[in-house]
């Protein structure tokens, strides 16, 4: 019917470009045949196949054709639009064409990589191209809208990634909110003794940065705090942060720690979280000596006052006139507006209780690597002495690599840092105790600056390297020499012989995995997670710190396992991306917004309640009321468009005609026209 929608534009001149992507596409899809088909489609003036469309010459091809053939529509059949839509829009713009007259067809991720059958893959590619040609005919030139970027940044997580990102931004003069859930910043790195491969002291390099955060005028640091609500969009996020009470006021405390001394508990008797239960603390305690802020915290789960209300409150007394201790403190909610967010929430280590064959939690002398980090730490529970839970000093130690990693039953990925930290622990243990150290590895992975040299050094030190994955740890003695020891049964795969190796101490090199609450955070910020649960970057190579939520960046191990240098590098990159966003001041919005045909709208109000951004309102009061969409608020989901019962709302880039043309194009071969 002629009155439905737009008229088919006349004088359409389409150029179709089919990419080989080297062999990625061309090895499966017959790209020549696809181009051939395109040449025969109505409106197509030129159709080519080319090795790499995204390369400079490839883009130049498009620019040249626009000039030579007066093209006014472009279809590029290559990879996912998530990868190169921008590239080809730019190419078109450089050729003098409105960038929105370009449409991409995904014949790599959706075709050549998933359908090995050449004939059927080619058939599918042809149909998708035909659909795109039909669709692009309906495209119209569009202008981009701009949104302004609020200059403040939120950094979630106060480990080394968050600290580095926050400092970078703050040093550039930006206001940063740093939110940390624990009572102190520092993260996992604060727990380490030495860092590989240089063996410099973790505390020595981290502590100054922690203090710098505390002191920086541009950084607002909230510890014991969690993000509980996020609204808004890139440039204008509104974030709600809940600050759980510390019960000691940071603004009043001088850090004298007299309160801890004065606690009615004369001896520390509760497992110390920071030392992973290897030592004890009081109900009021400082998480660790270098904690930032240097303010004690009260744990209501163990404090008598909170449990029974009948404490003498000697801590309050000790604090005296300062009155920093506030047992009545309640959670406080902060609301901030920021333009961008950096997620640096880190990782958790694999819980080896999930692998009972390794005896963790069953045999006291089986340790996780993180526990050993505390054990060898000079400021740790034993002052750096390696003493077992039973008080003995180990004479032989087995370090099992890949615990929970590279395992389809648990975490299929390689955690990347375990080989190196196992070497480091082997070195430290050997150095401190002189014990025989056995490393059980599947593959030794030392790809980093100075890493292989470190491995070489360990070999020279006489540490045993046995290539084989330990099948089980037990205290089952088959031989008198094994009595009282933990026995590791393993095939030494280089010998091809099964060995039993008795040791005094077993160290489980536990892998890194996503934090158990990564899922909740992911929902809050509307970012995606990869299959294993780490935050998903926008592109693994080309956009490694961006996410699919614009303005939200990731840094550190929340994105995937990595070591400290990589974490810091990534945090710097995330900070730089955030800076780039802020300094641009505003960004272009995809012009895929919905709009109302005011003359046709009957103000039925179906759409109003559907918009999650309250972008739709009824205007026109007494005269002729109709709906109106505020393009600055519209994010382009198209829900109202689909709902409008009289077809009076439309959407740029996703017009009914475009989508229907695409459907028809896909199926054109079926119904015979």
């Amino acid at each position, binding site marked *: 019917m002629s009155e439905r929608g737009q008229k088919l534009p006349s004088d359409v001149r389409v150029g179709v470009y089919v990419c080989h992507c080297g062999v990625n596409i061309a090895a499966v899809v017959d790209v020549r045949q696809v181009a051939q088909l395109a040449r025969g489609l109505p409106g197509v003036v030129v159709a080519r196949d080319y090795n790499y469309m995204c390369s400079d010459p490839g883009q130049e091809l498009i620019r040249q054709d626009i000039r030579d053939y007066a093209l006014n529509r472009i279809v590029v059949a290559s990879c996912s639009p998530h990868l190169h839509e921008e590239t080809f829009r730019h190419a078109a713009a450089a050729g003098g064409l409105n960038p929105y007259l370009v449409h991409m067809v995904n014949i790599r991720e959706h075709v050549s990589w998933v359908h090995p059958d050449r004939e059927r893959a080619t058939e599918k590619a042809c149909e998708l191209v035909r659909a795109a040609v039909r669709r692009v005919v309906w495209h119209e030139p569009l202008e981009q809208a701009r949104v302004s970027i609020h200059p403040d940044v939120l950094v979630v997580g106060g480990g080394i990634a968050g600290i580095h990102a926050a400092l970078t931004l703050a040093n550039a003069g930006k206001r940063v909110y740093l939110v940390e859930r624990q009572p102190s910043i520092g993260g996992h790195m604060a727990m380490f003794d030495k860092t590989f491969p240089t063996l410099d002291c973790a505390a020595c390099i981290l502590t100054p940065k922690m203090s710098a955060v505390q002191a920086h005028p541009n950084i607002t640091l909230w510890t014991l705090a969690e993000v509980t609500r996020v609204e808004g969009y890139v440039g204008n996020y509104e974030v709600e942060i809940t600050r759980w009470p510390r019960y000691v006021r940071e603004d009043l405390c001088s850090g004298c720690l007299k309160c801890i001394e004065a606690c009615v508990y004369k001896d520390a008797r509760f497992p110390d979280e920071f030392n992973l239960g290897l030592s004890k603390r009081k109900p009021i305690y400082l998480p660790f000596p270098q904690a930032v802020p240097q303010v004690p915290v009260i744990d209501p789960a163990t404090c008598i006052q909170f449990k029974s209300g009948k404490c003498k409150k000697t801590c309050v007394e000790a604090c005296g006139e300062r009155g920093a201790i506030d047992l009545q403190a309640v959670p406080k909610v902060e609301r901030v507006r920021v333009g961008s967010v950096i997620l640096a929430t880190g990782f958790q280590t694999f819980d080896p209780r999930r692998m009972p064959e390794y005896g963790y939690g069953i045999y006291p002398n089986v340790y996780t690597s993180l526990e050993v980090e505390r054990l060898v730490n000079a400021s740790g529970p034993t002052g750096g002495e390696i003493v077992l839970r039973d008080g003995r000093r180990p004479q032989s130690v087995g370090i099992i690599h890949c615990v929970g990693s590279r395992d389809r039953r648990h975490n299929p990925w390689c955690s990347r840092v375990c080989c190196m930290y196992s070497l480091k622990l082997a070195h430290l243990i050997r150095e401190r105790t002189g014990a025989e150290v056995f490393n059980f590895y599947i593959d030794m992975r030392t790809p980093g600056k100075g890493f292989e040299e470190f491995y070489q050094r360990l070999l020279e030190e006489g540490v045993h390297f046995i290539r084989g994955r330990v099948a089980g740890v037990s205290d089952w003695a088959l031989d008198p020499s094994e009595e009282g020891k933990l026995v590791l049964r393993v095939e030494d795969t280089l010998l091809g012989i099964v060995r039993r190796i008795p040791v005094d101490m077993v160290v489980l090199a536990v892998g890194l995995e996503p934090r158990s609450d990564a899922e909740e955070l992911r929902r809050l910020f509307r970012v995606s997670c990869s299959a294993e649960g780490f935050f998903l970057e926008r592109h693994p190579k080309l956009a490694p710190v961006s996410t699919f939520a614009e303005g939200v960046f990731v840094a550190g191990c929340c994105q995937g396992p990595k070591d400290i240098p990589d974490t810091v590098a990534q945090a710097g990159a995330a900070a730089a991306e955030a800076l780039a966003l802020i300094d641009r001041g505003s960004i272009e919005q995809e012009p895929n917004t919905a709009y109302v045909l005011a003359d046709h709208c009957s103000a039925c*109000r179906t759409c109003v309640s559907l918009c999650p951004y309250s972008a739709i309102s009824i205007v026109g009061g007494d005269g002729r*009321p109709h709906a109106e969409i505020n393009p600055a608020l519209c994010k382009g989901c198209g829900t109202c468009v689909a709902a409008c019962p009289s077809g009076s709302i439309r959407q740029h880039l996703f017009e009914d005609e475009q989508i229907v043309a695409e459907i028809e194009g896909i199926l054109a071969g079926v119904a015979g026209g």
Partner: protein
Amino acid sequence: MKPKVAFYWCASCGGCEEAVLDLGEDVLPVLEAVEIVFWPVALDWKREDVEALPDGSLAAAFINGAIRTSEQEEMVRLLRRKAQLVFAVGACAQLGGIPGLANLFDREEILEQVYVRVPSVVNPEGIKPSCRWSDGGRQLELPEFWEGVRTLAQVVEVDYALPGCPPTPALLADAVQRLLNGTLPERGSVLAPDHALCQDCPRQASKPDSLVVREFKRPHQAWIDPERCMLAQGFLCLGPATRSGCGARCIHGNMPCTGCFGPTGRVRDFGAKALSGLASIVASQDEKELENIFRGIPDPAGTFYRYSLPSLIGSRKAQS
């Protein structure tokens, strides 16, 4: 010479013809202005008379009703040949109308139902209509009952549509006037305003800005507040999806709109769009609960395609 016009009816109830009569005295000037050469319901003209006319000699043919039989098809083809303009009058001709609901069933089932199963039928031999019948050596012939109901436009080219079940006399008069004045719009137009009924609804002001529905009530089940928006009260009203021009007759009668004026100009499929708008405002996010709420719509096809089943996308003739 006065322009010649013809009226014809196909599968319809006759209501559209009534609408012509409902013009009352206003019909007189029309009769003054045109010469009616064919109008089976009112005048005794034969098919041969029409056949005898030269092709294109009629200024317009006003055809109501959907197409179900061979006779209907032959007649509309004939009229198409003779007429310069063809008007699809009423919902049946435009969209298929109530008779179009027969498309939910196949032909055999319908014949079986009507001639055998209905309790009031006495038909021990189970005789069903067939095209040819011989009776005492005489060959009798009946029009063929096609397999489905089609809209007029699915059989012949239609120039204008007058929507409604039936179209209002005012719309009819207006169409004739435009024909005489030569002020008809572009061919293919629907001769009614191109916005939804809500625009002209007397209860427009009572519509809440945020329209949500938690249950569906049917008009016979509850009292209908005559002042408030039907949807806001939970009555399934198709006003938001239906083309205006009817004068909100049903609403004035305190009944919800059932969609006889069909879709607005930008909608490809009335039922799908009406369903989409309605389902979107149901206040639930839970599949089970949604199923429950939608039980309040016992017959979705009959509700959303009450007047338009034959014009469902994909049922239409691919007209080029």
